[in-house]
C-alpha cells in the first residue's frame, strides 16, 4: 500500500508532441482514482509512466514518498491489468497467477505460492479453472485471471487500463462491482483508466479528467458533475451530455434561443459583463411543466417549445428541441465537440422527461427548467463563471469521508 505523487509530469514521444503535459496529482494511500478523457488524451501514457513502462520526459513520480522516475518496473512494486489482459498463453491459469511469485525465486516457498494462488482463485471464483489455458476461458474469466495475477503479489498499487472494455455490457456491470468491492476490501491504492462514464462515476473516489494531455479537473464524481471547472469537464461528464445554450444576461434575465430565463442575482452577476455566455443545462434539469408541483415550480421557469422527436428508453425518456444557434459561439461549440470525440455540433436541446410521459415529436410542450442549477460559461475561455468552489470542495470531502468509513468497516470485518 502506498501513496502516489505525480508532480508536473510531462511525456513527449519521439515526435516531440506532448502526450502528457504538466500533470500533477496526489493519490492517497488506499484511494481509487479514475483517469478519464477522450481518446488520445494521454490516460494510458500516465498509467504506463506510473508502471515504469514509459520513460518520464520531465517531472517527478513518487511512490510512497520515494522518487521512482529512474526505477525499472519491477522495483516499483505495482500491479497492472491490461486492456487485453496480457495473459501468458503458454501457461495455465494457475501458473499465470503464480507468475509474479515465481519470478522472485526463494522469496516464496512452494506451499506459500500454492496457498496464495488458491486463495486468489477462490476470491475470483476461478478454482475450477486453474488447470486450463487462458485461450479456453471466456472474456470475463480471463479478466479475472488478470486480476488474480495482480492481487497475489500484495502490490503497492493497482493500475488498470480499460480492463472492462472488451466485455459485453452485462458482464461489464458485474465485473465493475467486483472490482469495486475487491478494491475496498484490499484497500489498495488504485488508478483506473476508462472511457466509460458509469465506471468513472461509480468506481472512483476521485476522477481526473484529461484533455490533450492536460489535467482539467480532479474531484469526486459529484463535484465534477455539479461544479465542473470548465466547459470541457461539464460537457464530458454526464450522459447525455450537458446542453450549452448561447445567451446574454440583461439584468437578471438570460436571453436564449429557447426563450428568456430568469436567473438569481448571483448567477446573473457572474455573466452580466460578458457579451455572450453559454448556459450549461443538464437534460435532467428539465421536466414537463405538468409534472412539477407548485412549490418546485417556483425554483424554475416554465416555457413552451416544439419537440422535434422523443426517445423512449424504458426507464427514461428524452425529448429533443431544435433551436437556432448563435453564430458567435458555433466555433467554440464545434471545437468542444471535437475535443470530446463527439460526432458533431448539436443544435438540439436534450430534455429528460418522465418515462411515463406521452408527449411526442411535433407536440408543443410546456417545459419547466430548474434555473438554480444552471451554470454559465465564458465561451472565450471555457471557464465556469458560476462555479461554487466551496460547495464543490464539500462534495469531494464527503467522498473522502465515505471512503475512510468504508475502509474502516472493511477492516473491522476482516478482524472480526
Amino acid at each position, binding site marked *: 500500500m502506498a501513496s502516489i505523487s505525480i508532480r508536473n509530469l510531462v511525456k513527449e514521444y519521439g515526435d516531440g508532441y506532448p502526450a502528457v503535459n504538466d500533470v500533477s496529482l496526489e493519490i492517497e494511500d488506499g484511494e481509487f482514482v479514475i483517469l478519464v478523457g477522450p481518446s488520445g488524451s494521454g490516460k494510458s501514457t500516465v498509467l504506463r509512466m506510473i508502471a515504469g513502462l514509459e520513460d518520464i520526459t520531465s517531472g517527478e513520480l513518487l511512490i510512497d514518498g520515494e522518487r521512482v522516475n529512474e526505477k525499472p*518496473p519491477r522495483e516499483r512494486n505495482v500491479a497492472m491489468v491490461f486492456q487485453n489482459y496480457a495473459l*501468458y498463453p503458454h501457461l495455465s491459469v494457475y501458473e499465470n497467477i503464480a507468475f509474479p511469485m515465481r*519470478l522472485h525465486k526463494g522469496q516464496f516457498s512452494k506451499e506459500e505460492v500454492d496457498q496464495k494462488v488458491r486463495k486468489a482463485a477462490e476470491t475470483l471464483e476461478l478454482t475450477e479453472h486453474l488447470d486450463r489455458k487462458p485461450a479456453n476461458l471466456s472474456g470475463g474469466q480471463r479478466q479475472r485471471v488478470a486480476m488474480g495475477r495482480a492481487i497475489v503479489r500484495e502490490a503497492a498499487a493497482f493500475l488498470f487500463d480499460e480492463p472492462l472494455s472488451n466485455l459485453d455490457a452485462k458482464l461489464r456491470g458485474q465485473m465493475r462491482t467486483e472490482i469495486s468491492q475487491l478494491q475496498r476490501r484490499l484497500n489498495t491504492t488504485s488508478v483506473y483508466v476508462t472511457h466509460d462514464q458509469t465506471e468513472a462515476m461509480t468506481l472512483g473516489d476521485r476522477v481526473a479528467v484529461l484533455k490533450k494531455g492536460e489535467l482539467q479537473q480532479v474531484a469526486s464524481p459529484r463535484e465534477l458533475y455539479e461544479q465542473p471547472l470548465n466547459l470541457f469537464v461539464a460537457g464530458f461528464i454526464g450522459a447525455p451530455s450537458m446542453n450549452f445554450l448561447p445567451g446574454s444576461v440583461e439584468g437578471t434575465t438570460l436571453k436564449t434561443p429557447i426563450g428568456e430565463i430568469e436567473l438569481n442575482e448571483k448567477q446573473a452577476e457572474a455573466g452580466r459583463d460578458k457579451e455572450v455566455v453559454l448556459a450549461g443545462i443538464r437534460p435532467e434539469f428539465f421536466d414537463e411543466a405538468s409534472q412539477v408541483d407548485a412549490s418546485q415550480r417556483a425554483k424554475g421557469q416554465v416555457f413552451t417549445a416544439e419537440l422535434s422527436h422523443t426517445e423512449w428508453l424504458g426507464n427514461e425518456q428524452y425529448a429533443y428541441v431544435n433551436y437556432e444557434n448563435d453564430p458567435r459561439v458555433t466555433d467554440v461549440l464545434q471545437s468542444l465537440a471535437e475535443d470530446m470525440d463527439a460526432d458533431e455540433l448539436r443544435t438540439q436541446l436534450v430534455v429528460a422527461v418522465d418515462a411515463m410521459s406521452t408527449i411526442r415529436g411535433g407536440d408543443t410542450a410546456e417545459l419547466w427548467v430548474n434555473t438554480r442549477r444552471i451554470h454559465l460559461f465564458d465561451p472565450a475561455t471555457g471557464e465556469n463563471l458560476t462555479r461554487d468552489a466551496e460547495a464543490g470542495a464539500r462534495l469531494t470531502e464527503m467522498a473522502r469521508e465515505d471512503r475512510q468509513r468504508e475502509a474502516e468497516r472493511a477492516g473491522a470485518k476482516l478482524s472480526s
Partner: protein
Amino acid sequence: MAAGKLTSKQRVAWTFLTIGVLLYALFPVASIFVTSFKTQADLGSNQFWPTTWTWDNYEMIFVGGAQELFLTALRNSIGITLIATAVAVVLSTLCAYAIARLNFPGKRIILGTALAVSIFPVISVVTPLFNLWRTIGLYDTWLGLIIPYLSLTLPISIWTLSAFFRQIPWELEQAALVDGATQWQAFRKAIVPLAAPGVFTTAIIAFFIAWNDFVYGISLTSTEAARPVPAALAFFTGASQFEEPTGAISAAAIVVTIPVVVLVLLFQRQIVSGLTQGAVKG
C-alpha cells in the same frame, strides 16, 4: 468445399487425382529406393523390382570402395548445412525481431530486398561467384558454400519469422516487467516460449534448402574439402571402368533423403503453418 461434404462422384474424382499426384511424386523416389537394393546384374535389366535384394550398394558407400567419397561428402553436407542453418536462424531472428518490433526507415526496403534475393536465379550468380571465390580463396571451402547458402536461406527465414513475430502479443513482455521480471526474464519467460515454434520451423525450412542444394555444391567445390553429398554423387565410379555406379548413387541418394523425410514427418504441421503464415501474412 462450402458444404464440407463431398458427393460420391467428387470423392471418386479426388481419390483418383490424389493417387495420380502421389504416383507422379513418389515414383522416382520408389524407383531410386528399389534400385539401391539391386545387384550389379539387375541394374542392366529393365525391371522395376530387383530379382534379389542386396545391401551391397549400402556396404559400398559406407565401408566399401565409395566410402571415402561418400562419408567425407556426408560430413561436409551435415557440417555446412548445420552451420548455414544456425547462422541463418540467428541472423533472421534478430532481423525479424527488429522488423516486427521497431519502426525504422528502410523496413520495407529490407523485406523487399530479401524477396528480390530469393527470386534471383541461382544459376546466374554461380559463374561470377566462382571467379570471385577463386580470387579471394574461398573456392572449395566450407565458408565458400555457407555464404551462398545464407543467401538462399536468409530471405525465406526473415519472411517467415517476421510474419510469426508480428503475431506475438508484445504486451506480454511489458506485463512480465510489471509483474517483477527483469528485461531478460521477461524475454525468456514470456516471449521465448511463444517465439520458439516459429524459430524452430524456420530452422527446419532453412535446413532443407541448404541440404538440398546442388548447383552451388557442384560449382564451388573441386575436392573432398567441401563437396557436399548431392554434388559428390556425380563423382561416384563403378567397380570397374565398365560398370555404372547407379546402385551406389541410389543408395547414397536414399541415405541423404532419410533426414529430410524424418524431419518432415515429425514436424509437418509446424512446417505447413510456418509456410502458410509466411505466405499469407508476409
